């Protein structure tokens, strides 16, 4: 047996080019349907898992999938937003708690999630180090975000402008890191959490600046009339919120009209959830209420359909590949006729010859199965990650 395998090994090693091509094609044909099945299965589990834990979602009218993906996975939100009063409205029904999500800004590529402390309770998120944000301007990092930003307790994170054409002048806000969350293997790991009001500060809706009633700001004051003060740009706006300047931060406008991108509605019980959905279905047409699980189930069904088509195509390609491999093998036996005759002449038995030729097939197929298994293992190990990257 050892001699047979040794001879087979020497053959496949010497003809490494042919072996590599066979290995690559067979292992890919084996891996593609299995790997795809694993990825889709894991993706479906991950998507539905997070959707299951999010009973009701409210957002502006538009694509239900976009709203779900942005609220669950912190993808870039729709341009349309909701006024903050929708959060109050949900809570005031007494049927659910409304948790706002503001998702328009990033810090070093990580999404800044403006929300309230209810979000941490709802998702059962705990800090590994430090504490949750307590003061305007503070931030808490997800485990992966902390690594990506190379920031820990005591460090500062700088918000990025919304875009190159952000002429409204949302200044980058320097935010102290007060906590780092435990890793959860969800989108929360990659987020920079701030209080909703801090998100509004980043957006420029809330701001702080030098006290224009003080003499040192006098040079920037253009006019004073009926309690209003008009100042020029020399009046210094704060880009970091500290205990010294926090009192100077104030709203311009009615906070009820300030934007949020989605509202997670957490019903008190199942009946409350049904009643809440009923109210929204009858009422306002400028907002949509949806059940994320239904949206995700539709998405997952589409994923399964696509997977099935790919697997069917893969089976066809697989049959063609194996037929080609069989043809290559048969042709190689014809080309090796003299070698086979020589082995017979010097005393090699038919059984050994068949063993050597079969050994070559076994080695290639076994190696291809091992490669396919290794690839499947890698995919199963990092499948969640891949789906999250693809999901945005």
């Amino acid at each position: 047996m050892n001699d047979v395998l040794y001879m087979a090994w020497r053959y496949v090693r010497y003809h490494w080019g042919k072996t590599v091509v066979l290995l690559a094609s067979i292992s890919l044909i084996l891996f593609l349907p299995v790997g795809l099945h694993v990825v889709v299965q894991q993706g479906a589990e991950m998507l539905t898992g997070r959707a299951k834990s999010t009973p009701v979602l409210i957002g502006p009218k538009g694509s239900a999938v976009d709203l779900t993906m942005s609220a669950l996975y912190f993808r870039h939100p729709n341009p349309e937003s909701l006024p903050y009063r929708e959060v109050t409205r949900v809570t005031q029904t007494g049927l659910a708690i409304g948790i706002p999500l503001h998702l328009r800004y990033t810090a070093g590529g990580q999404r800044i999630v403006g929300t309230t402390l209810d979000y941490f309770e709802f998702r059962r998120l705990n800090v590994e180090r430090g504490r949750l944000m307590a003061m305007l301007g503070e931030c808490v990092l997800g485990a992966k975000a902390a690594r990506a930003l190379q920031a820990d307790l005591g460090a500062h994170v700088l918000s990025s402008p919304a875009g190159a054409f952000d002429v409204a002048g949302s200044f980058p806000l320097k935010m102290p890191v007060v906590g780092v969350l435990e890793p959860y293997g969800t989108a929360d790991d990659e987020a920079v959490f701030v209080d909703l009001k801090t998100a509004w500060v980043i957006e420029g809706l809330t701001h702080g600046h030098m006290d224009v009633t003080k003499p040192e700001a006098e040079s920037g004051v253009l006019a004073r009339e009926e309690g209003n003060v008009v100042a020029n740009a020399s009046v210094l706006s704060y880009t970091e919120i500290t205990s010294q300047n926090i009192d100077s931060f104030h709203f311009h406008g009615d906070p009820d009209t300030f934007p949020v991108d989605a509202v997670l509605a957490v019903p008190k019980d199942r009946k409350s959830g049904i009643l809440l959905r009923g109210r929204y279905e009858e009422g306002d047409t400028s907002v949509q209420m949806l059940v994320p699980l239904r949206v995700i189930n539709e998405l997952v069904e589409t994923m399964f359909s696509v997977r099935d088509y790919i697997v069917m195509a893969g089976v066809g390609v697989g049959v063609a590949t194996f037929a080609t491999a069989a043809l290559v093998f048969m042709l190689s036996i014809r080309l090796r006729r003299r070698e086979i005759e020589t082995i017979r002449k010097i005393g090699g038995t038919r059984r050994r010859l068949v063993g050597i030729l079969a050994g070559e097939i076994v080695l290639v197929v076994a190696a291809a199965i091992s490669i396919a298994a290794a690839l499947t293992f890698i995919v199963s190990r990092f499948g969640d990650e891949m789906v999250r990257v693809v999901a945005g």
Partner: protein
Amino acid sequence: MADIVIEVKNLAFGYRVGGFCLSVRALRIGPGEKMAVTGPSGSGKTTLLNLLAGIFVPSAGQIRVLDIEVSSLSAEDRQDFRALRMGLVFQEFELLEYLDVLDNVLLPCRVSPALHFHGEVRARAAELLHDIGLGDKLHRYPGSLSQGERQRVAVCRALVTKPAIIFGDEPTGNLDSSNRDHVMEILFRYSADTKAPLIVVTHDKELIGRFDRAVDVRELAA
């Protein structure tokens, strides 16, 4: 050792296609005898060799080799008998391109269940290769060797099992005179040392004179 190593009586053989027939009334080959088989192309020299080696089975007559009636053995027993008792050298060397020199020499031990591969055989193979001047090329592949070197490797493959009989089918047909002499010297020396008969098909008139006798295959039928 018996006086007669190979004895052929009233042998007849015909190919199914082509109509060629070979017949041998009687042929005896003794220990250590060096016999050249001659004759024009297509006269049946290689066929005779294949019959004596048990590769072909005669349609009639007897072939006794080392007191064993070879034609009465089963196909597998003939394979084993050949592996254990005979060494074969071919005109085209017939080395396996994917095995290095050492593994080519050890090939019979790997493909025949009658032989066993072990350290002693490996040492003998290496020693044989050293003796014929290929000691520094044990792990080279046949493709990188000259014609003469390849035939010397093929000779080592035939001798590694310490055969009782050596057959050569025009073993020097593709070699220049210097390599021819080298290869034949190795075969003659082995035959002389071990008393193994050496039966070689050849067209080379210069070479024929060095054998104990030369047999024209056409005359064997008489």
